């Protein structure tokens, strides 16, 4: 039995998406920038994709930009806004638990002379709005907060943050990295005070190598890639037509039954959490203090720490039974790099090297959940027997 529980890393492409992309790549392969009919046909796909996504986000078509993925969207949002608004101030705000695409871009901007505040999180992996409020100054040009944490699945109060930022400094831009949240919850940037929003195709059963950046009309931004002037000169490079169309198709299909899917994912998560609690020496990370069933967190991510079992070893032991998960922290004997998220949450030392992430998708079944639990009941006592003494 193959059980893929690493959907936060990437997902299986929906067959309809693959079909559409094959058609575009093999038949309607024109370049939208070409003047002839072949180019125009390709442009129709691109416009269609932009229309679909803008509708799903309740945004305008011209606010949707296609990129090469989440990392580029984050880089473009942060670097593009920081440079374009330099005269207004040099202060940026983010959290300690962002994805490296944001954290390392912030470090880069620090080297370029910007000042960055990294907001702490509580034990459940959430920032406090009070901290955010006191971090914002008249010099703050941009705040970047992720929607869903990729390691533990905690949700940030982005809507409240959006309102707060508008109140404290209306000129401050608000970027949300929604790579893990898009397609799992309804996000409407316009209504939530979000100026820029990053999303990725391959996390929502679409293709790799494509992402989007929503850029609200009021945003002053400059390009980070220069070239042929595609996408209003903000993001040069030949349009990735199959990618954009594939991502839009995937999003459209997911949104068609989003609420049922989210409820199903949440029930998978509840069952999995219940099952995990049958094991001794297990800690679940990222849950809200009074919601043991996962209420108020991402429906598709479970982060658990297993006392006396190293993440990598459990990962490979599950792999032997066809179950694919992710080591919660990229930690190895030679290059220890404990997870920044877990450290920011202040977890105990042992958890840094014993945490595993399980992430579900619309393809995940209850049977798979039960099989995974049974496998763990079987393997974990054996693995604990051979723990470093």
């Amino acid at each position, binding site marked *: 039995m193959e059980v893929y529980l690493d959907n936060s890393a990437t997902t299986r492409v929906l067959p309809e998406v693959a079909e559409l992309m094959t058609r575009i790549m093999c038949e309607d392969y024109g370049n939208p920038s070409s003047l002839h009919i072949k180019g125009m046909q390709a442009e129709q796909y691109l416009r269609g994709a932009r229309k679909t996504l803008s509708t799903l986000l309740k945004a305008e078509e011209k606010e949707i930009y296609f990129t090469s993925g989440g990392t580029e969207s984050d880089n473009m949002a942060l670097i593009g806004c920081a440079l374009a608004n330099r005269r207004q101030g040099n202060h940026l705000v983010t959290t300690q638990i962002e994805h490296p695409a944001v954290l390392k871009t912030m470090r880069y901007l620090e080297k370029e002379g910007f000042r960055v505040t990294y907001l702490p999180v509580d034990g459940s992996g959430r920032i406090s709005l009070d901290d955010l409020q006191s971090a914002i100054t008249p010099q703050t040009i941009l705040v970047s907060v992720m929607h869903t944490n990729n390691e533990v699945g905690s949700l940030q109060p982005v809507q409240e943050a959006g309102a707060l930022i508008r109140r404290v400094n209306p000129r401050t831009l608000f970027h949300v990295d929604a790579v893990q949240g898009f397609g799992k919850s309804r996000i409407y940037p316009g209504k939530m005070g979000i100026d820029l929003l990053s999303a990725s195709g391959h996390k929502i059963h679409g293709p790799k190598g494509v992402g989007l950046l929503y850029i609200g009309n009021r945003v002053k931004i400059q390009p980070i890639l220069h070239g042929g002037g595609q996408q209003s000169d903000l993001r040069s490079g030949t349009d990735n037509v199959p990618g954009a169309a594939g991502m839009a198709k995937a999003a459209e299909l997911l949104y068609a039954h989003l609420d049922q899917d989210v409820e199903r994912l949440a029930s998978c998560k509840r069952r999995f959490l219940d099952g995990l609690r049958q094991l001794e020496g297990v800690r679940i990370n990222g849950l809200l203090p009074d919601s043991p069933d996962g209420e108020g967190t991402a429906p598709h991510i479970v982060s658990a720490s297993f006392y006396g079992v190293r993440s*990598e*070893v*459990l*990962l*490979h*032991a599950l*792999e*032997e039974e066809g179950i694919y998960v992710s080591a919660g922290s990229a930690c*190895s*004997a*030679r*290059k220890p790099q404990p997870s920044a998220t877990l450290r920011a949450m202040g977890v105990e030392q042992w958890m840094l090297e014993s945490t595993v992430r399980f992430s579900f998708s619309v393809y995940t079944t209850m049977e798979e959940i039960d099989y995974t639990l049974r496998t763990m009941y079987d393997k974990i006592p054996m*693995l604990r*027997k*051979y723990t*470093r*003494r």
Partner: protein
Amino acid sequence: MFSAFLIKYAEIGVKGKNRYLFEDALVRRIRLALKKSQGEFEVRKNQGRIYVEALGEFDYDETVERLKHVFGISGICPVAYTQDEGFEKLCETVVRYVADVYPDRNLTFKVDTRRARKNYPKESMEINADLGEAILNAFPEMRVDVHDPQVVIHVEIREQIYLYSVVIPGPGGMPVGTGGKAMLLLSGGIDSPVAGYMIAKRGVQLDAVYFHAPPYTSERAKQKVIDLARIVSEYAGPIYLHVINFTRIQQYIFEKCPHEELTVIMRRYMMRIAEKIALETQCLGLITGESIGQVASQTMQSLAATDQVCGLPVYRPLIGFDKQEIVETAGKIGTFETSILPYEDCCTIFVAKHPVTKPNLKVIRRHEQNLDPEIEEMIQTALETDERIVVGGDA
């Protein structure tokens, strides 16, 4: 300009009556190495020399790079051929050769002629003097120094005339296959690939064994070892890599023996298993990447403890090397970047916080008796897991 290479070999030259065996092996190795190269080549032995001649278009840089991977070659001389169209013409050709190869020209030189075709109208000494004069006339900034010249321009008069003066250093050593075969214990670290390289350099063909311990080590760790074997095989030729599942033995040692002695005991079992495979595959020895004192399991006492289980000789070519020296060689042969990829290997996972550094052989032996009931069967089972992978055989 160059269309052939004269291959210099150092140590083979001093061999006695079996010298031809070494030369033939070198010719075979060169042919094998050039198979991967673009273009057709003829490799031939001629009057105590080996020539590699391109039979058409070829990629000069790639060819030189391939030849630099062939053990036994001490120097690679690119040779320019020219037709014999009289001495005047030869002077022009030599002058043009000097202009092309030494654009600076501010050099001391001498001409060294070998007249293999004895009916050539001039004698060697005369040719040396006349060609030297031609060069001096063309480039007054060059100077002749017959005792210690910076450049020796060799002229060989055969059916055609050969010109060469540049010597590109080869890797040295002896042609692989002239020294028998040995079993390399390959771990995925920095040292063992270098150890394999060094023994292969002495003409020894390599087999290798890797101890895989899933789920403690990953498929990526195994792939890394295969990749390392492939890099070594670019010098050593195809390598038979034996992948042995070691998990159960490791766990059993963990259950039955004191934790501080685990690494030493584990290594003793690795040596025992490696030796069994070595004997079955006609290997004449084992090779490890150990160096005295590098880690707890490589002290003199630990080495004695691992050495003691083997009947076959264990070759440890890095024994007197510092880590930095090993790293430098690994960088030179191209294994370093792969070696440092951060995947857990089976040696690190069960390591005690304070392993013994001076194991007592008697104590170790007594503790190994705890394993008696099942260990032989486990070794047998492990040997049956042997997954034999030919690395670099697609050459």
